[in-house]
């Protein structure tokens, strides 16, 4: 055309070597296109996109967007080519579409790159994007030459990005008018790359030969179609290869035999945040917001940028005046001069902001980084763009699971033991995570088993929109849900949020997201100072561990985190129990109970899943589990109370060592017998303090929890622990068989002695005897305790009695009618029997009188009941009656 004096044919094809996402490159490309006005524009990108490039001019299209190519039969295999408003490719597309100049994409088809990527490495689902060679940062995966780094190194820069910025991006348009000036930087970069490639060959970019051959062929086609005057926008690295002359046959040979899949392509909305990640073009950029600013600012980029920063600070109530901005500009400019840079770059600017506006603090700076340097920009794609792969994946999954989207409301019962139903449940849970509320969990009718789930299904038309929106997160339901969960975990502010997320991740079977979620969980837990929050989080976490077992998920990480959480509670609980008002006390009591149950479950779970845990990354020294107890080695265990080397004790004879061995009738009454058996087993295991293994530690955890409870129960008086908590702690210990009855009686006596304020004593009683129905049974069976209560109650002064009455009423009214009646009868019978047992010592195993029963054991009647009880306990037909049976009989009696 009018390439005045530029040597006519010599400039064509106009090769514009750029850095992907470089605002300076974009500006230069625009200027060069304006100057030369080519008849066609060729762009590095998958040729499949030729068909949908028109959409880029659509009003509904707003960058950042990405070209997304995916295998038609497997949406999980996909590649992205992101384009921001400041990308040179985007600038070229816009220029061409505005002038009705044809646009062609000339890179290797996505059909090939996707197939090649699949062959190279069988990546599961998440990121199987074509491994584009990078013009920007070095690629971690393979050792490849980073052309920019090489050039920057030659120029004495240690940071390639900075070099490129100084040399290209921060340059204004070339000096002087005319087309030669606008093309000059490209020529220079082209020469540099040629020199580099002459020295380094392909620099490790093996795929490039085929890609560049394809580019040359497409370029040849284009010149035939549109005439010689075409412009090519491609990564600077490819410029020398495109300028080289080679024969058509040679190029075709290079392309022969490339694998191929059927690929489809579409536009998807993109975000600046994702631009900052390494994907697609490979040139992940760290500061899209800054680049966008550089590209769009009409003039004085530094001043405008710092004003933006100041505005951001003001919006966040940080006082920043214009004087600050002035000083920051001065500092940034002088700093750039000191560092010998032509213009202040991002580093200088941020240094200035830190020193002048932030008083040296990094905290407000993080805000700038998040909001401005990266930015929250979200692209838009017109509705006419082809459907996103996520929708396809969903449709495919729906078909294979025989779960049709119907507008009609219906209920769905799932049995998670069935493969198909489990998959359906996972899909629904994942969709819920993605904000596609197709199904909502409903209360199960009938069965309450954990393997059953009930859903209410209803497909609303707007859910399609939700699916399209969720397309930002990934190309398949699994990968999208994983990405969403990860981002949710990182962004969550409270511990409860993360725990809930963890639970949902397990339900939705997102093992990929679990590490991130667990990390977030551990972090939140570590920083949370409120034991209450931790105590709230623990039960649901432990539930997840248990539930994970049902779904056969590997919950080793979860167990680890749960144990860590329990550990923190153990440390934090005792101080948190001090100085509480009655409301706070009852809340804390609830927490304590929840934690108690959770720790019980946790230790149980970790014992059953010990081998799994041992395989995990934890510091496991010895494979310790209940079935194969570790040999007692170093006395490293904290709760090492028992004789080392005690042989494995079968549950029946499992009288653990020390104080815990005290058999206890009340326990038999309030705790189901199988649980007791397990309990004994765990106690026995604890006695054998083994090496520091995970399972062993968990048993130790239980022991230490008991220690904490004991400490709480024993703290008395003054600004000490409220009675209700002390009472509850004592009771929990007693139920676990970790508190000898004598000791319980002593504690009760202490709590109910005349030195204690009556209300405090009543609170203790509430804690010790209140709550579950089992509370009353204890009194029925242990007349000594009843006697203590009775004596205390009769001793309460008349004026205090009215204060105490409501508390006591609350405690006793919760009992079953039968229990209340029995208690009443016992009390009416008088203190004769009670006195006896108070006076008497602890009942040994051979003690004839179980409280509440006649003296001795009626062998005849017991024998009649024994087979049934055995059956109930699943003990088989063991020979002589053991202490356990004795309890069982008592319990049954």
């Amino acid at each position, binding site marked *: 055309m009018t390439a005045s004096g530029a040597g006519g044919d010599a400039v064509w094809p106009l090769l514009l070597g750029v850095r992907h996402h470089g605002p300076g490159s974009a500006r230069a490309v625009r200027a060069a296109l304006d100057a030369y006005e080519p008849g066609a524009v060729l762009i590095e990108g998958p040729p499949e996109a030729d068909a949908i490039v028109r959409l880029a001019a659509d009003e509904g299209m707003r960058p950042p967007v990405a070209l997304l190519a995916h295998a038609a039969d497997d949406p999980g295999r996909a590649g992205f080519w992101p384009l921001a408003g400041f990308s040179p490719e985007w600038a070229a597309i816009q220029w061409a579409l505005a002038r009705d100049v044809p646009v062609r994409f000339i890179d290797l088809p996505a059909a090939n790159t996707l197939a090649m990527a699949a062959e190279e490495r069988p990546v599961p689902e998440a990121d199987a994007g074509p491994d584009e060679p990078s013009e920007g940062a070095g690629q971690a995966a393979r050792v490849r030459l980073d052309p920019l780094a090489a050039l920057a190194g030659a120029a004495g820069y240690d940071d390639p990005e900075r070099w490129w910025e100084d040399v290209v991006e921060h340059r204004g348009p070339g000096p002087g008018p005319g087309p030669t000036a606008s093309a000059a930087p490209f020529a220079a970069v082209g020469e540099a790359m040629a020199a580099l490639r002459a020295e380094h060959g392909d620099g490790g970019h093996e795929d490039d030969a085929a890609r560049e051959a394809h580019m040359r062929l497409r370029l040849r086609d284009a010149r035939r179609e549109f005439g010689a005057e075409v412009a090519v926008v491609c990564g600077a690295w490819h410029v020398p290869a495109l300028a080289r002359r080679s024969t058509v046959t040679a190029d075709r040979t290079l392309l022969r035999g490339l694998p191929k899949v059927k690929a489809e392509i579409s536009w998807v909305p993109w975000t600046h945040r994702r631009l900052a990640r390494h994907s697609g073009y490979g040139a992940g950029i760290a500061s899209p917001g800054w680049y966008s600013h550089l590209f769009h600012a009409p003039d004085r980029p530094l001043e405008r940028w710092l004003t933006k920063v100041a505005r951001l600070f003001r919006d966040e109530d940080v006082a920043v005046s214009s004087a600050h901005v002035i*000083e920051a500009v001065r*500092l940034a400019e002088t700093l750039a001069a000191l560092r010998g840079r032509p213009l202040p770059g991002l580093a200088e600017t941020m240094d200035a902001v830190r*020193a002048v506006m932030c008083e040296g603090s990094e905290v407000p700076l993080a805000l700038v980084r998040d909001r401005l340097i990266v930015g929250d920009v979200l692209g838009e794609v017109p509705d006419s763009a082809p459907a996103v792969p996520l929708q396809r994946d969903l449709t495919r999954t729906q078909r294979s699971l025989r779960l049709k989207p119907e507008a009609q409301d219906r209920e769905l019962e799932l049995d998670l033991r069935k493969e198909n139903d489990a998959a359906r449940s996972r899909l629904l849970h994942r969709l819920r995570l993605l904000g596609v509320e197709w199904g909502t969990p409903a209360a199960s009718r009938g069965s309450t088993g954990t393997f059953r789930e009930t859903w209410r299904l209803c497909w609303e038309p707007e859910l399609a929109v939700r699916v399209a929106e969720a397309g930002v997160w990934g190309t398949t339901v699994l990968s999208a849900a994983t990405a969403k969960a990860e981002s949710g975990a990182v962004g969550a502010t409270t511990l409860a949020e993360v725990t809930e997320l963890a639970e949902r991740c397990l339900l939705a079977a997102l093992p990929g997201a679990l590490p991130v979620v667990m990390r977030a969980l*551990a972090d939140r837990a*570590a920083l949370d100072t409120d034991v209450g929050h931790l105590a709230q989080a623990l039960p649901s976490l432990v539930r997840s561990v248990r539930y994970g077992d049902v779904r056969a998920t590997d919950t080793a990480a979860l167990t680890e985190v749960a144990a860590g959480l329990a550990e*923190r509670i153990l*440390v934090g609980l005792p101080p948190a129990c001090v100085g509480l008002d009655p409301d706070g006390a009852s809340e804390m009591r609830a927490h304590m109970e929840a934690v108690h149950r959770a720790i019980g479950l946790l230790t149980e779970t970790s014992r059953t899943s010990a081998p799994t845990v041992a395989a995990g990354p934890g510091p496991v020294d010895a494979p310790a589990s209940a079935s194969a107890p570790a040999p007692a080695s170093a006395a490293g265990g904290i709760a090492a109370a028992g004789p080392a080397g005690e042989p494995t004790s079968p549950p029946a004879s499992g009288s653990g060592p020390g104080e815990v061995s005290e058999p206890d009738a009340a326990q038999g009454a309030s705790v189901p017998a199988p649980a007791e058996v397990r309990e004994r087993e765990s106690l026995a295991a604890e006695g054998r303090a083994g090496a520091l293994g995970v399972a062993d530690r968990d048993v130790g955890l239980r022991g230490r929890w008991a220690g904490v409870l004991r400490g709480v129960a024993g703290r008395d008086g003054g600004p000490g622990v409220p009675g209700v908590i002390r009472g509850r702690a004592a009771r929990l210990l007693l139920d676990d068989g970790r508190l000898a009855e004598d000791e319980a009686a002593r504690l009760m006596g202490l709590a109910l002695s005349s030195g204690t304020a009556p209300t405090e004593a009543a609170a203790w009683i509430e804690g010790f005897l209140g709550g579950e129905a089992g509370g009353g049974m204890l009194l029925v069976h242990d007349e000594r305790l009843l006697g203590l209560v009775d004596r205390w109650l009769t001793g309460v002064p008349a004026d205090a009695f009215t204060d105490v009455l409501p508390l006591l009423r609350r405690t006793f009214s919760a009992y079953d009618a039968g229990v209340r009646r029995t208690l009443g009868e016992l009390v009416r019978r008088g203190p004769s029997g009670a006195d006896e047992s108070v006076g008497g010592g602890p009942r040994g195993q051979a003690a004839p009188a179980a409280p509440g029963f006649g003296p001795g054991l009626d062998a005849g009647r017991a024998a009649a009941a024994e087979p049934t009880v055995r059956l109930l306990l699943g003990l088989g037909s063991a020979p002589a009656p053991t202490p356990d049976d004795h309890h069982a009989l008592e319990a049954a009696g």
Partner: protein
Amino acid sequence: MTVTVSGTESTESTESTQSAESDRVAGGAAEVLRPHAEHTFADELSALAAADDRPRPARWRLSPWAVATYLLGGTLPDGTVITPKYVGPRRIVEVAVTTLATDRALLLLGVPGTAKTWVSEHLAAAVSGDSTLLVQGTAGTPEEAIRYGWNYAQLLAHGPSRDALVPSPVMRAMADGMTARVEELTRIPADVQDTLITVLSEKTLPVPELGEEVQAVRGFNLIATANDRDRGVNELSSALRRRFNTVVLPLPATPEDEVDIVARRVAQIGRSLDLPEVPEGIDEIRRVVTVFRELRQGVTADGRTKVKPPSGTLSTAEAISVVTNGLALAAHFGDGVLRAGDVAAGILGAVVRDPAADRVIWQEYLEAVVRERDGWKDFYRACREVSA
């Protein structure tokens, strides 16, 4: 066991260790315990001045580039080796020097032991060739220390006159276009601090008694240091704050750096206290440094577990004191080898400043982090013993 580390002490605590030897060697005045920076490094400064061909701001002895080189070290074209005075991020020195060049006052913030005073002294020495125009900030620093005082004998004998006036270091710096230094700015009472506002914004110091003023000549600037863990003692007014560019000096970046600094400093102190020779307790030092770093940063060294940071500062200087203390224990009461038990009590004292909150934090740290760690069993037990 705690040792208060004031600003002046911190001069010596970290980076000064490298130069302590050269102090002794190069010190012109042999009897002086500690010569000024401009004397100690006179050779380097003159070599830099000779090699420096870049533009210098008015009354600067060196160009900003040469000042940065003086602090960060390097080799000049003629082969002179400039020793690094500050070991840390280059960015920080560059911003500090640039701030001085743009005629803004510089505020160096940091916890004790981050070489604030050290950096300020060397900056002043390199820029103005004189690091002695110093105002030490204390709770009792009067206005006269920043503005001017009177020679009362003169004042009574001859009335107010220029001769009776005793100029402050700041005033002298203004008159001569030099760099003034204010140490521990936040220790100075707020009303006294604010006398700096006029100096920094109007660059003038009125003397109403004489109807005169001292106007700052070009080249005048001011470097202040402040302790950012002691925040809130005498918070800078926002008017004053606005006059400063702030640079935060970080704690040593890597554990190795910090272990190195602690070990060397401990050896020095041990020598000066004439402690009996105790064999290398480098493992114990490493443990102390690890504990301090982890609690300070709120995350374990492997980056996998977060921990709550306690209220104490846990600076390098405190780590030094813990180890020194442990050495003394080991030498006088122990078996002469630095063991976990010797440092445990010291660590407890350094970490647990607030008896309620810090104790929980410490125990949580012990249980969640230390107990699990390989080879730390003795340390764990020793700590449990002293914290029980």
